[in-house]
């Protein structure tokens, strides 16, 4: 389970997260919603350990393990996966090579044996099929020349291969048409298990029709101002964030 207590963080000396308290029990999927600039991506970067996102107070643990003291790659090995809002291009790096390198790094971290090229290919093909992605995807450079939707699906493919214990999806739905949205949702739902939890960051209620969250949190100006069930997302869709602000 993910437990965040009193988490504050700043970027370039500017306080962004102003005291976040959040618990995502194992087996649950929580959604985080909130207007642009409220700190959603910042929260995901802080949890993943990105440089420049300075933690100034509070704690974050995954299954009792302190995340904030670890290097990004150690957090990844501990089971943290971040699907990026803006996936990064790696020119000349083959997607298959990247995926296998990542998978083996994580497996090493967990003390599991590494997969050879053939074993990996078998596994990757199976996941690609589930995500209705073409095998071409493996041959291309990482995210290079990918459409917005392809990039997002590539993130979900990585998540499906790496099987994290905590997945953070940062606006993975934005820019997707309804078919792609369903595929992404299926990808997340397929991972649902008693030892898996997810933080789904989104602007829109429509993703939550397919990934039904156990809880919805509203993040505004670096604080969680409201928490509710799936119906809260629908309410926000109807009346906007202004109503929350008024209520908060």
């Amino acid at each position, binding site marked *: 389970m993910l437990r965040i207590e009193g988490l504050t963080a700043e970027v370039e000396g500017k306080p962004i997260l102003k005291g976040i308290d959040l618990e995502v029990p194992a087996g649950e999927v929580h959604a985080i919603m909130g207007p642009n600039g409220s700190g959603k991506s910042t929260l995901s970067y802080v949890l*993943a*350990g*990105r*440089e*420049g996102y300075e933690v100034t107070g509070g704690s974050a643990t995954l299954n009792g393990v302190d995340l904030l003291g670890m*290097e*990004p*790659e150690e*957090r*990844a*090995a501990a089971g*943290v*996966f*971040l699907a*990026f809002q803006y*996936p*990064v*291009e*790696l*020119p*000349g*790096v*083959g997607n298959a*090579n*990247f995926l296998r*390198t*990542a998978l083996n*790094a*994580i497996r090493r*971290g967990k003390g599991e044996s590494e997969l050879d090229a053939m074993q990996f290919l078998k596994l990757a093909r199976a996941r690609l099929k589930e995500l209705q992605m073409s095998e071409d995807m493996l041959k291309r*450079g*990482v995210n290079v020349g990918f459409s917005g939707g392809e990039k997002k699906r590539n993130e979900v493919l*990585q998540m499906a291969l*790496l099987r994290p214990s905590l997945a953070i999806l940062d606006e993975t739905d934005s820019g997707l048409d309804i078919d792609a949205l369903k595929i992404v949702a299926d990808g997340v739902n397929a991972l649902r298990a008693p030892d898996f939890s997810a933080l789904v960051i989104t602007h829109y209620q429509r993703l939550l029709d397919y990934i039904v969250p156990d809880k919805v949190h509203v993040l505004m100006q670096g604080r969680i101002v409201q928490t509710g069930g799936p119906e809260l997302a629908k309410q926000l869709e109807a009346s906007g964030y202004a109503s929350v602000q008024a209520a908060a």
Partner: protein
Amino acid sequence: MPAVAETLDTVQSVTEGTYKWGFETEIEMDFAPKGLNEDTVRFISAEKKEPEWLLEWRLKAFATWQKMQEPRWPAVKYPPIDYQDAYYYAAPKKKDGPKSLDEVDPELLKTYAKLGIPLKEQAILAGVEGAGDSPSEGGRMPIAVDAVFDSVSVATSYKERLAKDGIIFCAISEAVQEHPELVKQYLGTVVPPGDNFYAALNSAVFTDGSFVYIPKGVRCPMELSTYFRINAKSTGQFERTLIIADEGAIVSYLEGCTAPMRDENQLHAAVVELVALDDAQIKYSTVQNWYPGDAEGRGGIYNFVTKRAQCRGKRSKVSWTQVETGSAITWKYPSCVLLGDDSVGEFYSVAITNNHQQADTGTKMIHVGKRTTSTIVSKGISAGKGQNTYRGLVRVAPTASGARNFTQCDSLLIGDQCGAHTVPYIENRNMSAKVEHEATTSRIAEDQLFYCRQRGLSEEDAVGLIVNGFCREVLKELPMEFAVEAQKLLQISLEGSVG
């Protein structure tokens, strides 16, 4: 202080016990006496039992060299080299070689292990006695290997198999004895002895290197490969390689280089000459991993090399691929003179400079024949305080109607204390020719590193992956086995460059 002076005392103390001064007792010697004069040249020629014409050739080169000045135009800095303060011939005594891998410098073995070089080959590379006597197989495509340690070629494998096709692959000193007519016909015809300071020096004192002749219409059935290795202290290595592909012949040749870590600077001034006749193809790949010096810039090899190919024949093709990760200083411009109509020249290069390494490297494409084409792809990577200069010349003679060149020069910077420089020279004297040049400079972005690390890669693995991606267009030109080696080498070379 002269670069080599520092450690000469040490060397003397090492060698003095076994070393006898004077030219008369040559058989006993490991080293030619220190310094460079006509007697040194005669000594080397006599040691190799060379015919009179070759001695004359060397002496002429020496006389030319004495009148020449060291080039100062490369963008590299180093203290003056005292050419009289070095040894020009070092033949390792058999009894001095390590008897087993246990006696070999563990640091060196660690490097080989990192490179994934099989134990058997490690033993050969480290000069373990007897290790090179029988070639290793193990199901892989055989690779014929010639290994040059300091001044002497010690092992040429698969010779008999190649001889069946009429292919000659041997040490150049052996070729001088066995095939003097071929050596005489081609030696110095691509890189004349007076071509430049280092080429003249090499012509005077070259000690060994490889010789390859592929007869008409023969496609060489295996990769030919040479490992060069500087073992002895305070010796320069001056090898000379000559490859001739007769009409319609095809050959792929790989050169690998290593040197042990020492805190002195050692000079490596090689000359490589390639000749391609009608329809012949030569692919020459280099993975250069000379000792680059330590993190503070102490030691390392000065790699001042002249490599040139002549595409003499119609439709002939020469392709240079180089991965330059080593050496304190690299000064090297593998070139193609495209004489034959429709001949093709290619240059694919990755040069890495880390810590205090300096590289001034590039190519020259000289278009003379009609419709000659050349392609240049250069990838320069600078990290630490490394300085990387691409220097390239594309010259189109008035005769080269319809000639075409495409040049792409990309630089990647890691950190903010390194530098990358691009110096293209274009001389086009034919209106119908087309010359294109593209250049980019980029940095490894923080978001790329973070993305990789979020996926579980260590920072160093992430840099390695990104750098290998950057170099992909060049690495894919290498023969398979060496591409893997080169990838690992790139990563090792950049260790400690981030964080």
